């Protein structure tokens, strides 16, 4: 058991190392931070540009392998992931700040969305082909098919209209906080107001995804022999559904759940960009648009860790939920 886990973790470490190194080579050869200095007005002398690039280990006149080595030793010796081109300070500080924003943004959204999705999926499966099933299934399919940013645009337009028509600013859609009132607890209300719409988007998209999965799994479980046996031995329909069908069909959902939680850090990019939350998803875009080699690689490393944590969590979850699975 211990050996198995150790071997697996070692494999993950190697995977991550190779993936991050490849991303570094790619980012360092494709992105071009020099442009940022060359665009400066009044123009900077070429030597100054070269000197500041070299100071940050970003100059494309230094051989790629040499830059890679400097960068790698920085991480191994001092956990320094490199500096951003136009900003002082290490990328890892920036990421530490942004992870907090992302966590505040997605926690309620993902938990609410998954719960809603699982409940809806399981419920509609028991009511297959009834009108409630058809409406919910089609609604989920529709939300699933709309690009997230279109969904956000629609919600923002609706919210603006509501604010204008009623004259009260119920919905806020820019940033994490705004003008705080002077009554007690105002800061909390303010934050919740700003969280409302992004959370709604996350809940809708997650619920659409999970209700589709859960409905299929639940239909398979409901048609299976052990549920029929449970009914045949005299168990009530409700109990057979809850204890036999639902419990079994929740096991594969656990896998998706773990992956969703882990990958949503980078997956909520659109929500963060369009609602002005300065989290990890937004950072991924800013780094590339800002020719930020070190930032992009650090984001990739973070994303890789998320996927591997998700995979491990998924396995643990299945092992915990499913008595048939025991790590051999």
């Amino acid at each position: 058991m211990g050996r198995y886990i150790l071997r697996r973790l070692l494999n993950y470490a190697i995977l991550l190392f190779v993936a991050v190194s490849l991303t570094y080579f790619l980012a360092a050869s494709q992105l071009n931070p020099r442009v940022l200095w060359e665009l400066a007005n009044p123009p900077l002398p070429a030597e100054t540009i070269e000197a500041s690039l070299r100071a940050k280990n970003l100059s494309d006149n230094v051989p790629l392998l040499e830059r890679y080595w400097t960068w790698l030793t920085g991480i191994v010796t001092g956990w320094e992931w490199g500096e951003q081109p136009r900003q002082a300070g290490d990328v890892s500080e920036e990421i530490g700040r942004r992870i907090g924003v992302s966590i505040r943004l997605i926690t309620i959204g993902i938990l609410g969305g998954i719960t809603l999705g699982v409940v809806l999926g399981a419920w509609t499966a028991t009511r297959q082909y009834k009108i409630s099933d058809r409406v919910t299934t089609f609604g989920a399919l529709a939300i699933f098919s709309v690009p997230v940013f279109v969904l956000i645009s629609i919600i923002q337009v609706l919210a603006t209209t509501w604010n204008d028509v009623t004259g009260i600013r119920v919905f806020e859609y820019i940033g994490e906080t705004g003008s705080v009132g002077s009554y007690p607890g105002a800061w909390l209300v303010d934050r919740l107001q700003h969280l409302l719409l992004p959370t709604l988007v996350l809940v809708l998209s997650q619920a659409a995804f999970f209700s589709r999965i859960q409905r299929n799994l639940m239909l398979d479980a409901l048609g299976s022999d052990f549920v029929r046996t449970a009914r045949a031995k005299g168990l009530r329909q409700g109990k057979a559904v809850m204890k036999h069908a639902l419990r079994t069909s929740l096991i594969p959902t656990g896998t998706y759940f773990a992956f969703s939680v882990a990958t949503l850090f980078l997956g909520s990019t659109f929500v963060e960009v369009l609602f002005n939350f300065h989290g990890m998803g937004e950072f991924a875009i800013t780094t590339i648009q800002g020719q930020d080699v070190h930032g992009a690689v650090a984001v990739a490393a973070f994303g890789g860790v998320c996927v591997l944590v998700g995979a491990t969590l998924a396995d643990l979850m299945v092992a915990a939920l499913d008595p048939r699975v025991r790590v051999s």
Partner: protein
Amino acid sequence: MSVVNPEVLEPAVPGAGGGGGAPVQRRITRRRLVLRRFLRNKTAVVGAVLILALGFLAAFGPLLSAWDYDQVDRYAFLQPPDSRHPFGTTQSGQDVFALTMRGLQKSLLIGLLVAVFSTGIAAIIGSFAAYFGGWFERVALWIIDLLLVVPSFLIIAIISSANRGGSNQSFFDRAVLLLPQWILLVVLLTVFGWMLAARVVRSLTLSVKEREYVQAARFMGIPAPVVILRHILPNISSLLIIDATLNVAGAILAETSLSFFGFGIKAPDTSLGALLGTGARQATTFPWLFVPAAVIVVLLVLSVNAVGDGLRDALDPNSGSGGRA
């Protein structure tokens, strides 16, 4: 999803005049069975019709318009819809209808090509890995894991946003510049799109390859690639068809996401994603820039997903959601 008999026996309705005889058995082919199950799903049928209509629109829509997508009307900048431009014009005076048609063409093309290629790669790598086993399988699985660990969106964005015009071009830069931009996007989306399906294909192949007919073919000395192409892949074709269909939708959505941030198709060419990217930021003030492309994307992806669901129900013999037989 297991292997199905190619033909299913079904009791036919007893003939009016044939009272007393044994019930007549009518053979229906698998193809007709699948078609019947598919036609029963009204959402999927509507989706299929819509896809055909959109394909028709993409092919012949540009002929309906008096304007080319790259033509600039110097008398109409950012005009709302009128008789001259039925869908209005953009900031630079291009006709929105012509742009939308061009975008639809590009998005359809990207979606179809990515789906075909990534499902093809998934089928070949997944089945060969399972069939041969050993180090080949281990290497394939490791590469799959590696590609899953790298955030694909980031990598595609880095490659397609790189500035290749400079003086010191590498060989890679020149090769990329030779390709039209949408082909680069197809290649990138394919490279990062086949891994999950390959894993499923591998696990299905593992069970199919133990079947008698595969063993028989093997022991008759038929070369491995032929066994895989003739005997294994046709038997997991239902998975491949469903995967390809859903990949079309996935590729179209991925293209819109990349183009939204300017990492996909760039001007002067256009795609639905590029149109939405500029349109979404002005959706409240200039809705005509946003609405046509948004409606078409949603219709297209919704139809493809509906057809995918319908195919899953029709092709999967274990699925109860397709109704009886």
